[in-house]
């Protein structure tokens, strides 16, 4: 596994620059936390990394083929059960394994409930389990712990760190405390000043 290297990534929407010459290294097998004020382009960078959005210029190297993600929105299959959703990215996994993971994040009783009936924080945890269960070497998580109370957040953070040990992670967060618990490198994205750099 290699480090993931971003080299002078630029992206603008309709002539408005959002990312300007972003260079960074995401060390292989480690957690990198991405922080920055709302609207500074974190999700845009995530989408570029996931291949959902083309960069205007710049290069990325070391990206593994198999990716996994927690999107800023949950993006669950609303009519289907929490178990099906959690295992969606990895159909070969036995249901019992998926259920155990749901149990580990406090969703034992919700395993058979359709996603549409779950609360915001429960949906978030299903999305996190889905990302953990996908076979991937690089996980991108866009504000994964939003909407979780303090105790649940701690539980889910421990779960995530234990289950993704040895994988490369990029975690977008607004909380310095979260970043401190997760450890690893901190990447700060500054909003672009109107005068340019």
């Amino acid at each position, binding site marked *: 596994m290699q480090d993931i290297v971003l080299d002078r990534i630029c992206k603008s929407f309709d002539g408005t620059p959002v990312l300007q010459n972003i260079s960074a290294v995401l060390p292989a097998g480690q957690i990198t936390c991405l922080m920055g004020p709302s609207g500074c382009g974190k999700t845009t960078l995530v989408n570029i990394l*996931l*291949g*959902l959005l083309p960069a205007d210029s710049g290069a990325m190297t070391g990206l593994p083929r*198999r*990716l*996994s*993600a927690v*999107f800023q*929105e949950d*993006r669950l*299959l*609303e*009519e*289907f*059960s929490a178990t*099906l959703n959690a295992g*969606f*990215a990895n*159909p070969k996994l036995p249901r019992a394994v998926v259920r155990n993971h749901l149990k580990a994040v406090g969703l034992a009783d919700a395993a058979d409930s*359709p996603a549409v009936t779950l609360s915001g924080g429960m949906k978030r945890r299903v999305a996190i389990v*889905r990302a953990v269960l*996908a076979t991937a070497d690089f996980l991108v998580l866009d504000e994964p712990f939003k909407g979780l109370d303090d105790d649940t957040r701690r539980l889910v953070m421990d779960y995530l760190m234990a289950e993704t040990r040895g994988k490369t992670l990029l975690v977008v967060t607004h909380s310095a405390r979260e970043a401190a618990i997760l450890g690893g490198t901190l990447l700060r994205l500054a909003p672009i000043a109107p005068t340019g750099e």
Partner: protein
Amino acid sequence: MTASIMAPKFTKWHRLAAVGLALCVWQLAAVLLASPLLLVTPVQVALRLFQLLGEGDFYASVGFSLARIIAGFLLGLAAGSLLAVLASRWPLAEVLLWPYITAIKTTPVASFIILCLIWLDSANLSVFIAFLMVVPIVYTNLLEGIRETDPKLLQMARVFGVRPLRRVLYIYLPQLRPYLLTAASVSLGLSWKAGIAAEVIGIPEGSIGERLYEAKVYLSSADLFAWTVVIIAISILFEKLFLLLLQRGYARLQRR
């Protein structure tokens, strides 16, 4: 959904009472006209219907027409779905299909029936006519449904490398559900009516259409009305059954 907003606020009993009243009006009109040739009474129709139900020929005719029209409907459903998938993937396919779909939609059924009589033998005419009625409706609805499928879910599937079959089962099919239900209920009724119309014109032996034609030749209003009742009843049953199967299929999918 939208139906509940549009639906008038009367109950089953209101409807039943209204139907009863309408039957009384019919009976009264028939008695006043006093000409069974022009208008039979509902009682006479009911009697003729019971007679028919005792005949073996009756079931043979129903079976003949039903099998062909269902075959046409299912073929149309399959073809319409396939074309919708093609058109959603390749814009060129949509452009090339446009004249055919528009032609089928705008041409009067009678023109098609007569044209097809020249091409096909009358026994299988109703298969083709039912097919023709279904294709554009299924095509148009499904194409719209595919286009409306949530791009965020499709992106999610792409990031996780989810296989096409699973995308269809868990992302496309659930989102297509209202489109499929609309397409099926509209095209079921239409294919059945158009199929019978084709039989009345083509007169294949042993079909419902032939029995309607005979009713016309022998000026038998009672037969005409009785067969019409049968056609309506089968049409409703068929639609309900198909929609039930569709709902069942979805329920099974969601239980996974």
